[in-house]
């Protein structure tokens, strides 16, 4: 099933149609044109994130990213948003663990305006006191809402279990008590030491010639320097899970409980990555949520959703199996999911399942790459993980080469049904 892939090969992002340029100050630009629509997408990331947060001020990176657009040397909050919203555009910054990302969407005629606002927010934020206090209160309210969200709390508890003792156990948004510790001066200091052009990557995809996009970015950000910019801290090793650990949190008054269970996973560049991507697809993604969907939803009727997901970036990843069920069905759901995990590492996936899944990975490429946003995200991933501009051209081979033995072997390295992290949040 590579027909559609082959038919579409010339339209895939590749060395012939991606422009890549690295500026002297460390900024990498990726550009690809698409004139089918008058809009364009600008996405990027820089090397700042919650990994830099002090333990007693978790959430600092998150608040800093939120504060970038609250006031700059040339715009106050209202004038900045007025520029954006008046042309129906969108711009936002958000902090993750290893990076802070930005995303903009606009008509191509507004490219220069959007780049000037991105540069303004990145280069000269002033973090006005009043806006800071308001953002902080909004964030505290958000955390109070999170505490009532079974889905979010199960995910948080799972991270604390699977990444115990590692920085990845911390939520990017922090906790109420750590956010309360954060002051405006902390944002300024955090900004000064982590924001800069080194490692900044920008992708522009849409109705603009690549050269024009590159020139516009050079003009907006080419002379940005920050000699004080720090590098990402080294990640410590992660202690393995030695026995099944189950944690629960009670949120009274709710109707449904959420379960997140699973194990540690590989980093994005591990040779286990592709076998596990395909393995995960078979376990809890393919069709109506794979084997887990069949067992928990279709056969047992226990849940509206029961699926799995593999997250892999730099450092350790996680392989999660997730379901939302009535409280009276928690134990049955955990048993069913554990059974599926046990079967998954007991014997190789069937040849038919493997063929189906591979076909899915290749067939969905045109759909994933249909929108400017989808292409921009893919270009950023290519850069972040150094996958090469010919990644999409090599992709079929990487998928096709995975065998059922590869999946079994890789799965057994990570997934042990007797050594699971299990988190439950519900009434």
């Amino acid at each position: 099933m590579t027909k559609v892939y082959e038919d579409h090969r010339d339209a895939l992002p590749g060395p012939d149609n991606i422009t890549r340029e690295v500026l002297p100050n460390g900024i990498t630009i990726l550009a690809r044109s698409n004139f089918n629509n008058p809009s364009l997408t600008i996405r990027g990331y820089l090397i700042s994130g919650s990994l830099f947060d002090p333990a007693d001020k978790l959430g600092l990176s998150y608040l800093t990213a939120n504060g970038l657009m609250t006031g700059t040397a040339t715009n106050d909050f209202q004038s900045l948003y007025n520029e954006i919203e008046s042309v129906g555009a969108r711009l936002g910054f958000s902090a993750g663990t290893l990076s802070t990302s930005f995303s903009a969407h606009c008509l191509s005629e507004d490219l220069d305006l959007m780049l000037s606002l991105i540069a303004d927010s990145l280069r000269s934020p002033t973090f006005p006191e009043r806006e800071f206090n308001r953002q902080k209160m909004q964030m505290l309210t958000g955390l109070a809402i999170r505490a009532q969200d079974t889905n979010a709390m199960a995910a948080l508890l799972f991270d604390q279990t699977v990444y115990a003792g590692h920085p990845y156990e911390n939520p990017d948004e922090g906790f109420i008590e750590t956010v309360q510790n954060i002051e405006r001066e902390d944002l300024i200091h955090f900004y000064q030491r982590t924001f800069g052009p080194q490692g900044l990557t920008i992708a522009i995809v849409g109705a603009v010639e690549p050269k024009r996009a590159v020139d516009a970015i050079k003009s907006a950000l080419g002379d940005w320097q920050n000699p004080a910019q720090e590098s990402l801290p080294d990640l410590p090793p992660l202690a393995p899970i030695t026995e099944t650990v189950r944690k629960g949190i009670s949120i009274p008054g709710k109707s449904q409980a959420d379960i997140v269970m699973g194990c540690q996973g590989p980093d994005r560049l591990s040779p286990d990555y592709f076998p596990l991507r395909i393995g995960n697809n078979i376990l809890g993604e393919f069709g109506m949520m794979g084997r887990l969907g069949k067992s928990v939803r279709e056969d047992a009727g226990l849940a509206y959703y029961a699926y799995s997901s593999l997250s892999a970036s730099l450092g350790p990843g996680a392989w999660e199996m997730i379901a939302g069920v009535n409280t009276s069905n928690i134990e049955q759901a955990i048993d069913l999911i554990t059974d599926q995990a046990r079967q998954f590492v007991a014997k190789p996936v069937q040849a038919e399942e493997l063929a189906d899944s591979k076909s899915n990975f290749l067939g969905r490429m045109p759909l994933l790459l249909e929108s400017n946003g989808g292409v921009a995200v893919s270009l950023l991933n290519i850069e972040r993980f150094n996958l090469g501009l010919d990644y999409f051209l090599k992709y079929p081979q990487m998928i096709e080469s995975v065998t059922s033995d590869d999946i079994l072997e890789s799965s057994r390295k990570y997934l042990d049904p007797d050594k699971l992290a299990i988190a439950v949040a519900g009434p």
Partner: protein
Amino acid sequence: MTDQTHFDSLPNGLTIHLKEIHTAPLISSWVWYKVGSRNERRPTTGVSHWVEHMQFKGTEKYPAGQLDREISRMGGVWNAMTYLDWTTYFQTLPAYAADLSLSLEADRMVNSRFDPQEVELERTVIISEREGNENQPQFLLGEAIQAAGFDQHPYQYEVIGEKEDLKTMSRDDLYGHYKRYYNPGNAVLAIAGDFETQAMLDKITEAFGAIPGTTLSDSEVPGEPPMDGERRVSIAGPGQTSYVQIAYRAPSASDLDFFSLTVLDSLLTGPSSLNMFGSGGTTNKTSRLYRALVEGEIAVSCFGALQATHDPYLYSLNLTVHPHHTPDDVLQAVDDELKKVLDSPVSSDQIARAIKQAKALFAYSSENISNQAFWLGYTEMFAEYDWFENYINHLSKVTPEDVLRTAREYLTPENRVVGFYTPEESQN
């Protein structure tokens, strides 16, 4: 090849909208049925949504699971949605798979099994879906607002249905609903993507032409008298956060007032994206309610919801209350802000800005094929297709006087339900 939409129909009543788009080797195919919670009553509320679930449970030709597999193998996506006025099924697939899409939709239009055992398994799945919704305070508040907002019209029920009804509904209730509403005379087939129109029409005729169609009368849906004064609902639940929803009876989408209210909504709470899939939309930081309430630190967030519906529904203002304030403070601040649009006309510049925003969002909405195909059929559920084509044109004609008149007609206390969700602790 054409950039135009082709409109057609079959003798059995199937309405057809086709649009060739040759930018990617994909098609997006949607079948829309004019049935949703608008057509429901107690004790079978939620029946349309449940029928939608059963449509994935197989036919003789395509047993359950087979299509999941075939479509996933192609890398395609398929899903379905049920709402107030409609139920829709879509596939976005490689273009060469158009035949499969037509074949499966024609088949399940009439041949779904509704196996009793599958019905029972799906009962618990849907109750689980509902319980997931019940975990969200905004769902509980929205449900109470809908119930208070209508005395006669079925818009008073949540699409997912009352829990009591989900527990007791029978297989025959479901099958009867399916047999009544699923036929070509009550359906719109909309396809956008990489195909040739005439060849696609031939395929459609082959797939759907032999299915008998009937046109359904719309007289079964009761009208709703005007509201006789402000109504209030209050919900107490878990958490530390209070929410306010203020819902005004709104015009239907085919009413020209709908466009004035769209402009008004844009001024009050920011422009709304037309997109169902993919990127789009903008923020609402410069909107009037954001400036007055969020910057004023009375609320921590706000958004408006104006929905295009067949019959007059609700336009709602939704606010999350600032921890240092009360729902009453929020209501007062909203009323203070509304007073400005009720007292005097807004400026032409503000209307022009709202229209520019709408144009940008409109451009984003055509960025991918699934969105384009969505719009091909969606508007038929509450108006005619030209509603979409004339959308910007209608907005452009809105005057300051229209906005003032619309505000005075709809945004009055007598025409609304005010709902508060407050933490249980503060109720004691």
